[in-house]
């Protein structure tokens, strides 16, 4: 049976979030959520007030850029944020964290807010 995904079933809120996220990712990577729309500059998000927040996720590594310290992950829903899964690139806090990783490996990761941006502060192979 075909598992049809009906884009109209998505709430406007999620669409809007996706759109913002797409903007966020635009200069970072190629992302793969469908039906994203360009975001006018007027709705660009402002830098957040300082928060210290750790977000945990699980995903499949798509690509690793060891030189830049960037990892692209197709991740599942981020529970802490009530966010749907998608594919995005993230900076890692320490490039050495990428040394033992390989594309298409399942990982658990933590994103930590450092006062200006979210960084991957922990990333390990996931158990099953």
């Amino acid at each position, binding site marked *: 049976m075909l598992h*049809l995904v*009906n884009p109209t079933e998505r709430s406007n809120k999620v669409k809007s979030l996706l759109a913002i*996220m797409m903007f*966020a990712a*635009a200069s970072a*990577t190629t992302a793969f959520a469908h039906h994203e729309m360009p975001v006018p500059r007027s709705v660009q998000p402002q830098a957040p007030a300082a928060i210290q927040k750790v977000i945990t996720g699980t995903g*499949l590594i798509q690509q690793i850029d060891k030189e830049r310290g960037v990892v692209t992950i197709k991740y599942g829903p981020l529970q802490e*944020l009530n966010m749907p899964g998608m594919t995005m690139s993230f900076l890692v806090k320490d490039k050495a964290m990428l040394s033992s990783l390989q594309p298409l490996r399942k990982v658990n990761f933590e994103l930590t807010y450092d006062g200006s941006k979210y960084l991957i502060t922990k990333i390990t192979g996931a158990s099953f």
Partner: protein
Amino acid sequence: MNHFTRRKFLAALASAAGLGELSLRQSVSAAMDAGHKPAPVSGAPAESAGYFTNRLRIPGASGLYAAVAAKDVKQITVSELNFEILPRVPSPLWAYVAEVGGKRFLNPTLLARPGDQIKLRMVNRLKQPTILHWHGLTNDERNDGFGNYQVGPGKSFDYAFTVRDRAANYWYHPHPHDIAGEQAYRGLAGLLIVKDDDDDKLSRALDLMTGVTDIPLVIQDRSFNFEGKLEYKLSRDQLPAGFLGEEILVNLTVRPYFDAARRIYRFRILNGSNARSYRLAFAQGTRLLDYYLIGTDSGLLEQPQKLRETFIGAAQRLDLLLDLREASGSEPVFLKSLAFDPMHNESVDEKSGKPAAGAMQGMGVMPGMQSGGADPHAAHTGGGLMDGMEMPLLQINIRSAPEYKRNIPSQLSRLPKLAAAAGEPRRLRLGHDGEGNWTINGWRFNMRETPVIVQRGTRETWLLQNNRASMPHPMHIHGFQFRVLERRDSPVQVKTLATRQNGLLPQDFGLLDTVLVWPGESVRIALDFSHPFKGDQTYMFHCHNLEHEDTGMMIGYKVKA
């Protein structure tokens, strides 16, 4: 967690967005730069060290694709199991499971010779109906296996037939009504390799050994969810183009490499993808290597044909020889798909062939970008792998240089004499109804109807005419093999590969069961409806883009006794 916090998260990501350009597959840009023209090889970064990290799965003594004599297989159980497609990540996989001599086989490579009797029971352990179709074989309708014979969960179906066809790389896969695409996608597919004296002679001449230097390559595109499990999802706007996966697998190996020697290899290639076509080439750096087409769907050509590239549509097979003595140095050779225009031309004006106002067509369409016209069809991609983009499929490392002085024989086999029918052809027009459904002569599949009736023992010419407002359709006929007589009005990227004879492509000189018909193209094929089966026989004629098949681009046709 509230919306406010999510916004902050997104904002924080935005502030980290100075990461610079990073494409998942930088060959995307190579494909886009190529426009609609055949592209030079660009040496995509995906070919750099560390991308192809998994050893190609090759049929062994047991397990996945292991070879076994078809006549020794008494039962094939259609099963749901777990399998590590990605290393160390178990995924649900559906497979044809056979047990022979205490060994367990998944999607076994069945070996047979002309005249062999195959007698086996298919047991359905899925939670939905299924039926196994012997793709390319000449069988009576019951043993052909299609939706009218599907059996429910827990039920079984007995096959008993003689292999009547010439040596070739046939295959078997599910053919239930409406759900063949999902079942094939989830893993159900295997090869049936029929060998004969000509095949043996070639193996001796080139010192080929099955599983070592004579290797089947099943190419399939698949997507994995965030947990590394196979995922089959399409949005309604993706359905008309068919499923396109985010990764290309060869023999269910993701990002595969193969260690080879500097000698001749035979690759028996099956495009087992649901919808994707490939433009196959072997490249070393920016240089394309010559290779030799020796066979098609239904067996060896008469003579090998030297090529540098060829298209392969879904369900088609190409039998190739690659002489790695022609590679220079020790730089890896890549089996790759060159960039091409996938021709998602559903929105063009049918009469002029020009794009409809505001519509985008052809290649280079990224996720979320769609045809701008009112047409429901929208070219789409599978994740980062656009249809038609340049992509490496398999890395071949040259590891040794043994003493090897064999050369490719000039004569391979003899084909049955081509005898075309006199008179007007039967016309079959491929198009869509403007409501998202692909059609044949305006028909959509109805299991109770056979809109085409032919007389047993007669010859016919079928003229397959694809609309301009269309996309490529790999058209497959059950029950009979055919020859291609002529191609007309082929798109430029096809015409440039054609021979001087009637616009035919090199693979058109072989016997086929599936032919790829491009938008605007007219292909005449010669069919001989002679067979030994008594009584009326009903077969299928359909597009082997499995999502097209599942949504009705199929007709039954009857062979009157």
